[in-house]
């Protein structure tokens, strides 16, 4: 493990030197920071060099013929068209090379599939278009949304260093521990990829896939969803922070406390203004990608909420569709994705924003009761 880590650091440093000089001309796979990614990298380089070697021989013979055996040079054609010995040879030799290649590939694969004896278990759920991370052993969870501002994407503002590869809440994992990931999805298929870990696995509705990693070098690692999952597929990054164990424990304690506070917030008495303020934020992260920031939606795929009959008149229907979703459409059930406070806030917001001035509000307690009746 240590050896791998050292090698990885050395390689990364070696790669970084030319990279900083050459700016954005990264041409090769990164060896990454885990034993899996190291092994994949060495498989990749081995097969690459095998291909180069075969290419040199085959193209060498070809270019030799192209230059030497030209009609324009008066070269007379030979007339052979068979040779059993060569034909057998060039069937057997490639076969032997491939067998030699399959052996290390098999051992690596077996290691990648060994998800036993994990120290930390994290459930990852793909949603259109964000990730949910659930710390199974510690009973808290959160969503991770892309945090790149729209203005950068629309070229109205200079693009930041981590353009498209930054999130509001990164996944946090402890360094040196075996972390097991359980992957699933809520709507369509997504795929969770962190190149530096050598981990990519599909998140499929109705399935739970397993994979694992053990990161030895603290740092922030970035990846993306790699399975086409709809319009914002290009905008659902993965960011993982690997931190030393003590720091991790402190962070987990904080998260548990925050979850507790959140539960207490449900009990509080909320005013319309407070809910509107909170609702605006929740709406921006959870709903605006489809219904748009100004509530006009993208009809016919995503209906407008501004002036919608449901938002203006049908309160029960409104709560129901937000909590339970609309089956068979992109409108998901947000009941388990958002806290009671956020659900109440977002519904209140939709009923009062963009000129939907109903003046009505929904409290977290009402949502809590609604959910409990189901």
């Amino acid at each position, binding site marked *: 493990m240590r050896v791998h880590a050292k090698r990885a650091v050395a390689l990364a440093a070696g790669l970084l030197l030319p990279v900083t000089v050459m700016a*954005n*001309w*990264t*041409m*090769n*796979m*990164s060896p990454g920071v885990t034993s899996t990614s190291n*092994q994949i990298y060495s*498989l*990749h380089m081995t*097969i*690459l060099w095998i*291909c180069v070697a075969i*290419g040199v021989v*085959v*193209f060498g*013979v070809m270019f030799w*013929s*192209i230059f030497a*055996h*030209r009609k*324009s040079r008066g070269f*007379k054609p*030979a*007339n052979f*068209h*068979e040779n059993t010995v*060569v034909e057998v040879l*060039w*069937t057997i030799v*490639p076969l032997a090379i491939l067998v030699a290649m*399959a052996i290390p*590939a*098999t051992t*690596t*694969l077996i290691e990648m*599939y060994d998800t036993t004896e994990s120290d930390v278990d994290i459930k990852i759920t793909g949603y*259109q278009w964000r990730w949910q991370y659930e710390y199974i052993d510690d009973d808290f969870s959160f969503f991770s949304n892309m945090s790149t501002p729209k203005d950068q*994407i629309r*070229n109205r503002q200079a693009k930041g260093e981590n353009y*498209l*590869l930054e999130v509001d809440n990164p996944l946090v994992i402890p360094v040196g521990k075996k972390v097991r990931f359980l992957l699933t999805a809520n*709507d*369509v*298929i997504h*795929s969770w990829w962190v190149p530096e870990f*050598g981990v990519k*696995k599909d998140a*499929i*509705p*109705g*399935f739970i*896939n*397993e994979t694992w990693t053990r990161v030895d070098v603290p740092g922030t690692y970035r990846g993306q*969803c790699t399975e086409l999952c*709809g*319009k914002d*597929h290009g905008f659902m990054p993965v960011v993982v922070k690997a931190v030393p164990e003590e720091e991790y424990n402190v962070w987990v304690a904080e998260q548990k406390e925050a979850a507790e506070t959140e539960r207490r917030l449900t009990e509080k008495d909320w005013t319309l203004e407070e809910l509107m303020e909170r609702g605006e934020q929740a709406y921006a992260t959870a709903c605006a990608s489809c219904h748009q920031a100004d509530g006009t939606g993208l009809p*016919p*795929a995503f209906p407008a909420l501004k002036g919608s009959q449901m938002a203006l008149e049908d309160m029960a229907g409104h709560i129901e569709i937000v909590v339970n979703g609309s089956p068979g459409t992109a409108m998901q059930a947000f009941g388990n994705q958002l806290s009671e406070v956020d659900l109440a806030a977002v519904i209140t917001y939709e009923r009062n924003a963009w000129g939907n001035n109903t003046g009505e509000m929904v409290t977290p307690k009402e949502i809590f009761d609604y959910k409990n009746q189901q």
Partner: protein
Amino acid sequence: MSAVADTHAQEHHHGPAKGISRWLLTTNHKDIGSMYLMFSFAMFLLGGSMAMVIRAELFQPGLQIVEPEFFNQMTTMHGLIMVFGAVMPAFVGLANWMLPLMIGAPDMALPRMNNWSFWLLPCAFLILVSTLFMQGGAPNFGWTFYAPLSTTYGPPSTTFFIFAVHIMGVSSIMGAINVIATILNMRAPGMTLMKMPLFVWTWLITAFLLIAVMPVLAGVVTMMLMDIHFGTSFFDASGGGDPVLFQHVFWFFGHPEVYIMILPAFGAISHIVAAFSRKPLFGYASMVYAVGAIAVLSFLVWAHHMFTVGMPIAGQLFFMYATLLIAVPTGVKVFNWVTTMFRGSLSFEAPMLFAVAFIILFTIGGFSGLMLAIAPADFQYHDTYFVVAHFHYVLVPGAIFGIFASAYFWLPKWTGHMYDETLAKTHFWLSFVGMNLAFFPMHFLGLAGMPRRIPDYALQFTDFNMISSIGAFMFGVTQLLFLFIVVKCARGGEKAAAKPWDGAEGLEWTVPSPAPYHTFSTPPEVK
């Protein structure tokens, strides 16, 4: 009076009908072949212009030209149109023109069905392309249309997409039946199976692949239709269905499909390399066996497209080994071509230039394919631009260059004129440079971590994307030159001899150029 009637009847028999009905009602394999080729070129330009939209958007980071929804429609339609509209019909067109000429038959075995299978295609693509103008837009779920993105979450036009795929499937199956019936029943006396030209062999095998897998495609889209409209849950997990089942069924069709797009090119290239090396093809028998082996193995490797779905490790290993195995017969073919060139007497007219580029660049695509077959490494490559680079290296210099090589090789036979060699060489060199500029940097992008099917990307990918877009525009514009060359050749030019290439072999060169409307009314004798 009777004399007049006779000449009239003869005229009718020997020349094409006049006007639009010649094309609508024709049962002549040459007319139908030409229509297939023209249709496929039109689709190539349409699918190509969609690629230009994609590449224009990806020229710079940020969203400039199109919205992400429309971007997804462009990638999807580009893939579908190129695969089903450009490549497959082009090979059927070549088959129509050349199979009867190569085996000494007067026409295809089932001429009326031939007409019908062609005319279904414009209908299918009219439906497919019209989805762009429908509410909710065209299909946007990738040419692989994975469920549930394409079922529960698909746009309303998905139903029209399904219908279009059904019609294309019917057309392909009828085309394949026709090819098999022609080859098995209508060869000239003396032409045994092992004397058949390789283009005939590769098409025979391709036709069997088509008959085996097009119904699977029809099955999978029908299951989608049922899920969308009739309340079944084949692919819907919340109803007890299985989204991964979709992928298994799709790729059981999809992998043989990629060989359908390349095997006929293998055949044509074999003729061209031998002709311009002025030397018989090396290892004819092993070529035939290699194609057969590839065809059989192509049914056993489908899940190499699904290494990340979470298959059990035994499945993972099986599909990795089977995929590695398929490299062996593919290697044999490349070695045979190179050995055919070795100690030949080479000249480099346009068909040969395209053929040599085919061998080199297809082999590069084969190398990246070998890399993708290594399952652990595929976890890093999968669904990145490395894959986009890989399949464009096998499809553009593979299928498309194979088609260009064949077109230049046989144009003199089709039109009776030599094409403009200088222009054709210009077409080649611009295509060659453009294509490599467009697709080689995609390898780097994929390895550096850029996922495919994204309308916008992180800043470290900027430079190679810019180069790639420039190459793509260069390649795209160059194809208009091909149109010009073909039109020019059809309208006039130096008269072509019956056999314009001194090294060429085969029955097609024994008939005059242009090939008369009816050929081999009495079968030739093959020794």
